[in-house]
């Protein structure tokens, strides 16, 4: 049993409204590895947009050639237009794919880093977050980002590029007219687009709420059918649904009104065409613009507003993607750990000096703990619930960083060691074992360096026999390949502990910590197991956190904890110590 429910502390907790500032700078570390690809895909997309826009100019050239009565010229330009269309087709296919490909690679880096970091995060971090929240960040938010990259980003990028290149083209025809069109487009676009963007969020929230209210009423009423009939409340329930439906109608109509700001870009574009027509008519009359140039402007004005419309929608998606990115980045930042060079952890004495730890600043869970565990020793850590046994065990296993004092193995501070070194030397089995869905062999294979090939299996069976678990394995329907059910649910709690113990027996740690790890196993088996685990390696320290008198009896030494500190170490050397006395100090 865990003695403490970890209380979240302010610096560790992720919030629903993460910091969205400096996103680009914060995302940079995950982008740098993809620099070359990003540049290539941007270049291809730019050329694709360029050839699309150049097509516009070709239409203008055809018009001028026709008016000049130049048939070969007109046909040539039509051919060039077809060629540009084909080039734009090929390039935009490639560009579209490249943008997604590089975006997906970045998202993949993000999600794999997030999973790696969370899997290796400080245990306190995992304990202080709801599993659902972490799961959502690593799946839902990642999927949002990935969908954005897959569906919105290529279009967004090419729309922006098209706009820029179109403006450049128009300026080359006539800068005053281009400026006029730009002014009209920017003015109406920003007015309508921004109003839409401002109203969109509350509108869509209310719509979602109204829709879920309708669903909730229906689901609730159908679930309570009998009671509603008994109360003669059918009419009232239908009336209630009618009220929900009225709310939904109001929400939908608000949505229609909000969307009008966006669709309003259509008539704004139409009016821009009117303005351009008038200006172009004047320009052609004054001879500073050709008819072809006027046609180019008209096409540009029409398509620009279509682009602005999709741009506004895409920018909304971009906002949502930013929030998702911020949530993922804050997860990555919250789980970042400083790398240590490694301290060369060695087998040796485990020494604890003036150790302190607190979950909350005002209340220390451990204080002034001094211990010295010798090689080959089997030590029991006993004490009442809440005295800090499990917390101490987690610190000794390197899962929590001590707030004060130090833990040293073979003279080296364990916090200076790398994660890999700590994992190899310090191994812990908790009381509550959650297994991987799969077979026992799958679960054994999780142990570093353990494989379930032939030799691996032989070794596993041999070790199981040494632990006195041979019979248990033989009785299972498929031996080591027996399925354990979802998270081990088809095994009993005691059997799950057996799997966990067999798994660590395949390893060779310097310190083995069993935190109530045999509490659900019958006493005879537990005795065999604990002995065998100590016997398997004589140069190992075995620390057992235990309540049961029989476990305590077998110890070389008993360490008692009361109120977060070690009060007494008794060397028993074969002398029986009464568990109840130890428990209640």
């Amino acid at each position, binding site marked *: 049993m865990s003695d403490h429910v970890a209380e979240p502390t302010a610096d560790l907790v992720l919030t629903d409204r993460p910091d969205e500032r400096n996103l680009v700078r914060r995302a940079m570390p995950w982008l740098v590895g993809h620099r070359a690809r990003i540049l290539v895909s941007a270049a291809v997309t730019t050329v694709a947009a360029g050839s699309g826009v150049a097509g516009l100019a070709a239409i203008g050239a055809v018009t001028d050639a026709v008016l000049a009565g130049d048939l070969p010229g007109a046909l040539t*330009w039509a051919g060039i237009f077809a060629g540009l269309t084909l080039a*734009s087709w090929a390039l935009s*296919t490639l560009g579209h794919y490249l943008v997604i490909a590089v975006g997906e690679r970045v998202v993949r880096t993000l999600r794999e880093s997030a999973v790696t970091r969370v899997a290796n995060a400080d245990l306190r971090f995992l304990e202080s977050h709801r599993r659902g929240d972490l799961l959502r960040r*690593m799946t839902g938010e990642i999927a949002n980002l990935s969908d954005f990259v897959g569906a919105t980003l290529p279009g967004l990028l090419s729309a922006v590029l098209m706009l820029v290149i179109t403006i450049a083209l128009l300026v080359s025809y006539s800068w005053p007219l281009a400026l006029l069109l730009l002014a009209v487009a920017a003015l109406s676009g920003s007015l309508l687009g921004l109003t839409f963007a401002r109203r969109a969020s509350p509108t869509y929230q209310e719509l979602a709420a109204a829709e879920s209210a309708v669903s909730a009423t*229906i689901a609730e009423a159908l679930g309570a059918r009998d009671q509603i009939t008994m109360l*003669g409340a059918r009419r009232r329930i239908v009336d209630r649904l009618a009220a929900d439906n009225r709310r939904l109608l109001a929400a939908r109509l608000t949505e229609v009104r909000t969307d009008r700001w966006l669709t309003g870009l259509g008539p704004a574009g139409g009016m821009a*065409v009117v303005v351009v027509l008038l200006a172009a008519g004047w320009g052609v009359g004054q001879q500073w613009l050709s008819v072809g140039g006027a046609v180019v402007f008209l096409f540009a004005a029409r398509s620009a507003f279509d682009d602005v419309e999709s741009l506004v929608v895409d920018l909304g998606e971009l906002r949502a993607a930013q929030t998702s990115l911020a949530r993922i980045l804050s997860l990555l930042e919250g789980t970042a750990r400083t790398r240590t060079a490694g301290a060369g952890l060695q087998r040796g004495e485990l020494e604890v000096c003036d150790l302190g730890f607190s979950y909350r600043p005002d209340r220390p869970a451990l204080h002034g703990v001094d211990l010295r565990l010798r090689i080959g020793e089997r030590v029991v850590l006993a004490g009442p619930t809440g005295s800090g046994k499990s917390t101490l065990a987690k610190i000794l296993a390197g899962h929590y960083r001590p707030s004060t004092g130090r833990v040293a193995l073979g003279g080296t501070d364990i916090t200076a060691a790398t994660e890999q070194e700590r994992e190899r030397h310090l*191994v812990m089995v908790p009381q509550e074992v959650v297994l991987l869905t799969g077979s026992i062999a799958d679960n054994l294979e999780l142990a570093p360096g353990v494989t379930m090939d032939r030799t691996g299996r032989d070794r596993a069976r041999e070790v199981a026999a040494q632990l006195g678990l041979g019979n248990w394995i033989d009785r299972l329907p498929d031996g080591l390949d027996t399925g354990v059910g979802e998270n081990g649910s088809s095994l009993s709690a005691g059997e799950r502990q057996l799997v966990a113990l067999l798994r660590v027996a395949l390893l060779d740690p310097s310190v083995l910590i069993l935190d109530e790890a045999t509490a659900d196993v019958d006493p005879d088996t537990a005795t065999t197991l604990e002995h065998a685990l100590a016997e398997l390696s004589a140069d190992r320290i075995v620390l057992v956190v235990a309540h049961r008198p029989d476990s305590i009896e077998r110890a070389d030494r008993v360490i008692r904890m009361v109120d977060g500190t070690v009060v007494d170490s008794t060397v028993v050397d074969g002398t029986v110590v009464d568990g109840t006395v130890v428990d209640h100090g």
Partner: protein
Amino acid sequence: MIASAIRQFAFLAIPYVIGHAIDEGVVAGDPAALLRWCAVLAVAVAVEFGGLCGWTWWANTAEVKIAAQLRESMLDVAIGAPAAELENSVEGIGDLVERVIDDVDAVLVWVHGLATWIVILTTVAVLVPAIFGMDPSLLAVTGVCAGLLLLASLVFPRADAPRVARLADAQGHRSQQIAELLATALTVRGFGGQHRMVQRHHRSSAEVTSNRLAVARLRALWNSTGEALPQLGVAAGLAVGAWSALQGGLAVGQIATFAMWMGTVQRATTAATSRLGEYGAARASAARMAAVLALESRTGQESAVTGHREPGAGLALDGLAVERAGWRVGPVDVAIRPGQWAVITGPTGTGKSTLLAAVMGLVDSHGEIRLGDRHLSSATAEQRAEQVTLVPQQPLLLHGTVRDNLLLGTDPEARVAETDLLQACRAAVFDEVLDQLPAGLDTPVGERGAQLSGGQRARLAVARALLRPGPVLLFDDISSALDVDAEARLLQRLRTATPERIVLWASHRSAVLAAADLTLELEGRP
């Protein structure tokens, strides 16, 4: 629908007007003509937007109203239908909920698409003669282009669907890996087992990426092909148009009009194919909806008992028995007069609740249940509910306030006085609870009444039952969650509140037994 046709007509007119403006205004250099056409264009733009606004407004209103009507009648029918009928038509409550929510949505998507057909038809009706009028060969170009677009929008989605499905699978698999990693985290961290799990995750993450890229390859091609085809049409049109123009058949502005119309052709073909796809789904959903609505005709038929109330009639149970798997509850014979309390008692598991449920008509039973000279046994559940009210052991509250829940059993037409509500609460000893609630009667009870304790929910349900008009009250062990003092107050106040009612209890509490006029002892199971 009319709005959508007007909108599309104006939409199609815009390129035509622009073409004329170019020819008569710009090319001919006639400022008056240019101004005239610009004015026409402004009108067309305004009409187009007006039509669009009308279309979205009316289409959405109609859609929500149709959905509301469908859902309200489906809910009405589904609540009223006899359990046996319902079991024949649907697979469980989950399936029923799905039909009322998701299937209605699917049909609506199709209804929504109906207006698009009008748009497509308008487009065809306008463009075919208009383009033919310009030059028949341009119509041929348009036809080829539309055909290719149609082909593309049939071929691409078909190839896309399995890829998208594989991507969804890969994503689901990856989510599962993460869920498992989080579930086992505290265990596997003890020996460094997380590394293997991270490796497993990365393998499925790679799987996600390769599936995402497979989707992307197709979508990239699909996207640019959809854009390039009408452009190629425009190129062909330009060549044909230029040739025709130089023969004197076509004006420059008309070439521009044609180019703009090609964009519309693309949209129309895409819309047409996606509408065709919706039709199949909508038909299946419509059938599932119809199965629920068909229940109605059956529920209306039986009418053995009228809602008329007969004063002074007693409740008689003659040989009432219920068959359970392998044994039988009852038979029970009893006659209870108005103002009398009867209690069914016996050890746990002997069928006390079952007998109350039989009187309520929730389970099939043998024997006779009579109220005065009317046979309740042959009444529908609704008709029986007018006479009999059951407070079950674990009563259900609905989300909403205390008041909403109290009023649930009353006539929606009648206004219930505040004093009547408070009186019922007092009789049910719910007044003590009410005093402690932050907003009294207007306190929300939470989802399924989760804000109240079991005992509080039971008392609220008793108050709700007292507000019902029926002469018979069935109380199933309602005092079990109360302490002895509260129970005594409840019994005493209920006695005063039910002078004319027939009350049948199921209980093994001694205070209830002591308060009852009649006792029916059930024997233990054989």
